[in-house]
């Protein structure tokens, strides 16, 4: 009861202060510590096909690269991704997007990825390394049942035509831009 008798304006201001505090990372130290651990283990592991590094001084924003796995249509192609870590990481998933345009059934034109482990199946156990490995294997094994790019999903059956279009698009979006 006593809390209701205070001036509503004053209490509003106080609540704002409190919610500001609540939104702030309670313990950014532990988040950056975990990200540093991940960086260490990623650099030590020498995982083939994937790499990632913080973007500048900001430990909460990483740039990852992955190379298409051998034996898939993406073999030999290289893609850049951005990983944005929320202050609640690793309890909530980072926002992972393709920076390089990619023609894939589960990636839209803005680079958003539809992958269950980045959404409802996220677990605090997943790391940058496992995310990138998962995305790399998603390239070779798309989920064509819930596509973001229906054209790619329909074309997937015809791997020869898919690879032709994929290479055309990659050349247009990546190779030509790099050389120009």
């Amino acid at each position, binding site marked *: 009861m006593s809390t*209701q*008798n205070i001036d*509503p304006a004053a209490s509003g201001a106080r*609540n704002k202060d*409190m*919610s500001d505090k609540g939104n702030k990372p309670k313990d950014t130290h532990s988040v950056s510590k*975990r990200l540093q*651990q991940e960086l260490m*283990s990623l650099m030590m592991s020498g995982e083939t096909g994937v790499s990632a590094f913080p973007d500048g001084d900001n430990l909460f924003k990483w740039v990852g690269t992955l190379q298409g796995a051998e034996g898939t249509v993406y073999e030999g192609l290289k893609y850049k991704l951005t990983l944005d870590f929320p202050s609640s990481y690793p309890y909530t998933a980072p926002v992972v997007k393709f920076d390089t345009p990619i023609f894939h059934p589960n990636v839209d034109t803005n680079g958003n990825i539809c992958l269950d482990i980045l959404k409802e199946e996220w677990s605090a156990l997943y790391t940058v390394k496992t995310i990138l490995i998962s995305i790399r294997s998603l390239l070779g094994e798309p989920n064509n049942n819930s596509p973001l790019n229906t054209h790619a999903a329909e074309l997937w059956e015809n791997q020869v035509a898919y690879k032709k279009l994929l290479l055309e698009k990659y050349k247009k979006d990546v190779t030509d831009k790099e050389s120009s």
Partner: protein
Amino acid sequence: MASRVTSDSPNSDASGSASQDHEKEDSKNFECNICLDTARDAVVSMCGHLFCWPCLHQWLETRPTRQVCPVCKAGISKDKVIPLYGRGSTDQQDPREKLPPRPPGQRAEPENTGPFPGFGFGDGGFQMSFGIGAFPFTFFASTFNFGNDGRPAPPQAGSPQHADEQFLSQVFLFMAVFFIIWLMLA
């Protein structure tokens, strides 16, 4: 040390670098699956996965509706984890009892959309006196129809509507008397 030599790692060999690797492997075995650091206030789930209690607690708090083990997605709960007490630890308190300080609750004030801004902040006594004062007033006003407020004229005496209204007004009068008595007794 002996345990390291007899380690069942398939790629174990006798070189010095391998034993260093084992040392690292050994400490990795006791890393929390969430913070990736050596587990403190360690607890183990029924499915056998090791966590710091603060880390696991926060994981469970983050998704209260879907409490699963971060490693194997088996169902877990606060009551079904086992605290681990090593020989070195002097603190024998159950780690589950020392909760990490929880984030403060956020209480938003209700929106003031009604015609009386700040009305809801009055204490109980104010609201009660309002009820006693206002109710009979509106009751008298409606019963004896003070003033011409633009409502249709009452029906003719003897018509069925008139009888109905008489009955209704008696019901309301009874309710009002009952309510006032109840308020006085309460």
